[in-house]
């Protein structure tokens, strides 16, 4: 899998050390750096020779504990992807070591991407930001945008709560389970080994359809029943709603990835 060059890293509020560390983890070699020490740097970088292919620049915007306004900037043209710098010291040295292998190939497959920590995805209205940007950039006239946003939100909520934080669903009929759920959420949100896991949203589109991909780094899950039959809301993890909203739904990578398609 090759990807186009050059790659340009832009950054908001990221120090020069973290910019270079991210370039390294992404498998990039720095060509030049401009103003990175001020935390608003731009780095021109090239893919390693074995991976270089094609043409056309890609701009990756690096973010650090971003606000919603900063996330909005990271999904607007000409940015190809917004990428949060996670807290490696808290999450552990092993965190993000496969970022280049997992993330860079997607640049040639998806026009728009956002990769955030679970903490940021929990605190921000990422589904709204992502879908508004998608509507402006893709703009197929007949797409059901409200239903698309509902599906993105449900997939994102699954990736954050059940994937990244590893908190199970509460039974809709158990006050006791709801209390347990509340306690677990509260505990996990204080533990960076969970909150610094990545949640990555990707989108690609053409005149006929929009495809959304949501990936998390949790342990995955096994559906109790066939996902295709999960068409009531009480089914596992809101997947019933995604099935209701989308035309095609695929669960991959042991439950860590959901891909769904909307015909337009």
């Amino acid at each position: 899998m090759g990807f186009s060059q050059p790659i340009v890293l832009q950054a908001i509020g990221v120090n020069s050390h973290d910019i270079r560390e991210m370039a390294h983890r992404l498998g990039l070699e720095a060509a030049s750096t401009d103003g990175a020490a001020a935390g608003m740097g731009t780095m021109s970088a090239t893919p390693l020779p074995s991976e270089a292919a094609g043409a056309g620049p890609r701009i990756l915007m690096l973010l650090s504990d971003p606000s919603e306004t900063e996330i909005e900037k990271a999904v607007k043209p000409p940015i190809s992807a917004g990428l949060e710098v996670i807290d490696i010291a808290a999450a552990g040295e092993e965190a993000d070591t496969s970022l280049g292998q997992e993330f860079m190939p997607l640049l040639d497959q998806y026009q728009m991407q956002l990769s955030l920590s679970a903490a940021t995805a929990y605190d921000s209205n990422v589904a709204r930001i992502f879908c508004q940007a998608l509507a402006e950039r893709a703009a197929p006239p007949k797409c059901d945008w409200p239903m698309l946003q509902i599906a993105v939100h449900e997939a994102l909520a699954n990736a954050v709560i059940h994937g990244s934080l590893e908190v199970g669903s509460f039974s809709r009929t158990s006050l006791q389970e709801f209390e347990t759920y509340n306690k677990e959420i509260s505990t996990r949100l204080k533990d960076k080994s969970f909150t610094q896991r990545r949640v990555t949203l990707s989108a690609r589109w053409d005149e006929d359809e929009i495809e959304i991909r949501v990936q998390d780094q949790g342990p995955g899950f096994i559906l109790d029943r066939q996902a295709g039959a999960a068409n009531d809301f009480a089914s596992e993890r809101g997947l019933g709603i995604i099935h209701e909203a989308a035309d095609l739904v695929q669960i991959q990578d042991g439950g860590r990835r959901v891909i769904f398609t909307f015909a337009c």
Partner: protein
Amino acid sequence: MQYRAKDDGNGKEVFLSGSFKFTDNDVFREIIKDMEDFAGHDYILDLDGLEYIDSAGLGMLLIAREMAEKNSLQLRLRRPQGQVQQMLQVTKFIDLIPCEA
């Protein structure tokens, strides 16, 4: 999500507003606690000001139904709009808790 409540002694109206999402478990616990302490009969969740609800929000409404049954309250939903109405229809939720237009 935000809420405000109006109580006439026998019945209570709780007006929800904003977005009711998976991150609102703490604020909804306050409503569940209020239902547990409420000594009246009718408990209405007014959804007119609610702009968005997700599946976790719907799940929490079912927890409210459980508390209503436990405390012998008559729980009703009222005036869902827009996306909230759409979600209640998509999930056939209206079959589970009485809902007034």
